[in-house]
């Protein structure tokens, strides 16, 4: 009979293992922890791994335990039993062994700022997901729904609403991390008799489906948030641009709009005040680029989805030339909880530079794929071990791509970077929409990047030269590499194309399409060169010969 292995990883233990730690007994400590974990039968529940270059020399060897993000040190091998028994088995943090936060320096200094509570208690965006009937406004209201709107309309001025958001430090969750309060303030302060609120629910980044989960499980939270946004900036009309494939989300959102209208929470004179707000659904039609806010606006206007030249920005010249606020679904979902409680409350979660929680989508070569919400600032290693329950088939981690197709490739050496906006920016990677593609050692990086560029050459809108032709030429070069047909100067050509795409493209699509190419050559150059110089794909994925070319239709439509 086949043995079914139950994998239920719930904790990640990292032991510092650089030369200094080894001198002080980290190997013995590791061995002792391993023995204790096995002895307590926790091998399926606890991941044990090493971390190097942690700084804090007087604390070595140290042990970091996630998800609580507790740091113990210095830890003697004799303490292993206690750590496993008390902390890992019984769930009690050993207070007297904890390193005081002010002593954390260097690479792990950020842990001092992290809130350590368990993730289950920290759902903000997905607070009601799975707990209420998404098609029932009564359920939503019972669980504090429309309280924030009532409070704002009856007790707060628009300026106070924006002020509260600014205090909270909420940043846009669509990828760029722009401060939400600031964006609202810009639109609010732009003069104009007509303004619009748009919710970007196009969510076309491959592998990302957090917005879908929010819309399908709690549509009223977005209705409420959009009404709040409209009140704050002085708009009376809003659009939600929902990806065409999200039929269920569209149906539920439509129902939510109708229910809210029936109760006077949408429409004219909401809650008997002077504030009126009308909300419409616009369905996307399958173009990746329409997730870009100006292409999305063009699309709502009934035009071809091509990004506009900026400046001017949508905050001043948006939908039909009017000042327009465009926010991502997840960003908006954070708004009602902040206003219901307070900005200060929100700041307690996450890291000081990126407060709040983040909904990540994890997929790829891991045991458990899906959506999870945790405070900002978990590390990639933690996400894989605890939330994705480890790598599939025990294979070694090779790289991750954050933020969908346009995100950075993160090599193993950057696994311990906290996934918040500031830290990722500092490490030269992007957090993006929070999609985490995890690839194991059997993945060929050239093949992966080729697949990504294939996606971009189809999804570029075709407006600007560097993106339209640059993605195509890059794809052709990558294909040649996987066929063993490229010379070493192809890499210079790739870098030149990447540089042109980054510097000269009209919008983020072309600019970020080059990111995987650059990261590949930065972190995995040896592997790419092996394809060219040795004629071998180290992982055996690439064919390394010319296969029958796929027939490509390029005939003009007019010649029929």
């Amino acid at each position, binding site marked *: 009979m086949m043995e079914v292995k139950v994998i239920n990883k719930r904790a990640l233990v990292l032991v510092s293992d650089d030369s200094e730690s080894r001198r002080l007994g980290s190997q013995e400590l590791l061995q002792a922890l391993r023995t204790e974990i096995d002895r307590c039968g926790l091998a399926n529940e606890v991941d044990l791994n090493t971390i190097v270059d942690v700084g804090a020399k007087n604390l070595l060897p140290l042990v970091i335990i996630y998800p609580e993000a507790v740091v113990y040190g210095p830890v003697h091998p004799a303490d292993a039993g206690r750590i496993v028994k008390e902390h890992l088995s019984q769930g009690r943090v050993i207070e007297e062994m904890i390193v005081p936060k002010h002593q954390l320096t260097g690479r792990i200094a950020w842990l001092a700022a992290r809130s350590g509570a368990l993730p289950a208690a920290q759902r903000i965006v997905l607070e009601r997901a799975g707990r209420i009937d998404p098609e029932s406004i009564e359920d939503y209201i019972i669980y504090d729904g429309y309280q924030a709107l009532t409070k704002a309309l009856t007790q707060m001025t628009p300026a106070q609403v924006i002020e509260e958001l600014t205090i909270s430090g909420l940043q846009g969750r669509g990828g760029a991390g722009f401060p939400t309060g600031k964006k609202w303030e810009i639109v609010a302060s732009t003069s104009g008799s007509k303004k619009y609120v748009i919710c970007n629910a196009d969510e076309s980044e491959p592998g990302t489906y957090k917005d879908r989960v929010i819309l399908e499980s709690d549509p009223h939270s977005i209705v409420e948030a959009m009404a709040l946004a409209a009140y704050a900036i002085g708009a009376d009309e809003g659009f939600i641009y929902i990806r065409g494939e999200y039929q269920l989300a569209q149906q539920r959102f439509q129902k939510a709009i109708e229910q809210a209208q029936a109760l006077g929470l949408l429409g004219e004179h909401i809650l008997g005040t002077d504030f009126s707000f009308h909300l419409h659904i616009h369905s996307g039609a399958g173009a990746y680029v329409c997730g870009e806010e100006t292409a999305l606006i063009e699309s709502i206007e009934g035009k071809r989805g091509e990004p506009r030249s900026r400046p001017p920005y949508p905050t001043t010249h948006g939908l039909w030339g009017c000042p327009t606020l465009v926010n991502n679904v997840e960003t908006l979902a954070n708004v009602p909880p902040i206003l219901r409680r307070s900005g200060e409350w929100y700041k307690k979660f996450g890291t000081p530079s990126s407060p709040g929680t983040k909904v990540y989508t994890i997929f790829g070569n891991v045991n458990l794929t899906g959506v999870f919400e945790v405070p900002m600032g978990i590390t990639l290693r933690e996400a894989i071990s605890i939330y994705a329950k480890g790598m599939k088939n025990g294979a070694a981690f090779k790289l991750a791509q954050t933020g969908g197709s346009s995100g950075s490739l993160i090599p193993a050496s950057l696994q311990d970077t906290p996934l918040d906006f500031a830290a990722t920016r500092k490490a030269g990677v992007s957090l993006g929409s929070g999609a985490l593609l995890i690839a194991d050692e059997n993945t060929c990086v050239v093949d992966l990047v080729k697949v990504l560029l294939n996606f971009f050459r189809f999804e570029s809108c*075709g407006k600007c030269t560097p993106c339209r032709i640059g993605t195509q030429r890059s794809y052709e070069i990558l294909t040649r590499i996987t066929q063993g047909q490229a010379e070493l100067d192809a890499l210079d050509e790739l870098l030149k194309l990447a540089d042109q795409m980054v510097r000269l493209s009209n919008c983020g699509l072309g600019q970020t399409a080059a990111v995987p190419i650059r990261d590949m050559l930065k972190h995995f150059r040896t592997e790419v060169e092996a394809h060219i110089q040795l004629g071998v794909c180290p992982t055996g994925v690439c064919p390394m010969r010319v296969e029958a070319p796929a027939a490509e239709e390029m005939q003009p439509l007019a010649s029929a």
Partner: protein
Amino acid sequence: MITLKIDGKTVEVPENTTVLRAAEAAGITIPTLCDHPDLTPYGGCRLCVVEVKGYRLPMASCALPVSQDMEVITENPALAEARRGILELLLSDYYDQGYEDGLGGSNELLHWAEHYHIDLEQAMAKQPRYRVDSDPNPFVWVDMNKCILCTRCIRACADVQGRFVWSLAARGAHTQVVAGAGTTMLDARCESCGACVAYCPTGALNNKMSLHLGAADRKVTTTCTYCGVGCQLELNVKDDKVIRVTSNSDAAVNGMRLCVKGRYGYDFIHHPDRLTQPQVRKYLLDGTPRPPGRGEWVTVDWDTALDLTAAKLSACRDIYGSNSLGILCSAKCLNEENYLFNKFARQVIGTNNIDHCARL
């Protein structure tokens, strides 16, 4: 008014001017392809990028509005390298089958490529992607292998002519300019005005009738004889033959606009059947009865022809009455001439039977 600095020069321009137009006002040329002063800014080709203080990346000057105290650099080694890169990318999708296109061996794309010392032979596409001459329109030649997707044709058709024939289809590397929803130009309501040809910077759209006739040796500016609007046009002349008609932005009345007759209806000029002198039927001169088939034509001078016509018209009026005659005048006449026709009908002939070919 907004004051800004372009290449160190202080320039003052009205609000909402683009950086490109401001540079032009200061006498500075920025290379462009998708831009045309008549058309809505697009910002697609990226050839016109400039460096602007405060912006991290180069900006497309054709689509960037000026702002107070802006500081712009229009050319430096980095920008030249960027433009070379853009031109190389465009050329890598530009295939020339080698036929005579009548444009004198150059066009806007090739001009800038030569300006930046690009090896055309090496940079150009080696394989066609589309069928050459892919549209049956009798006047407009379509060769999408030369299309750089600047969309000037699309904007010319929409902004200038208001016909909306051209549009973009598909996405990414497969993006292409199509008529209607991928049909022929005529099926997409094309009036064959040739505005798209006039604005095309590469010869992807060209004049079918002039294609193999080579380059003109002179241009003669004249006024169209088809109607009273008085559009200015340029007769492109080679060996004393009109081989092509082009329009020009400076024309006071019409700018780049022409209609199908003005741009393509010039075949009468050298036609063997064209009348250049008055002719009358021989039997009328002889005063003999009308023979079967009305007999042969005789070339005469104007006085003879006009006297004969006047005598016949008077006779009709006198014998059968004024209303036996009707006058049909022409859009090819000026307003003044049409006014005189009106006077002639009502006062000389004495009838209200007067009409005009352009009355719809």
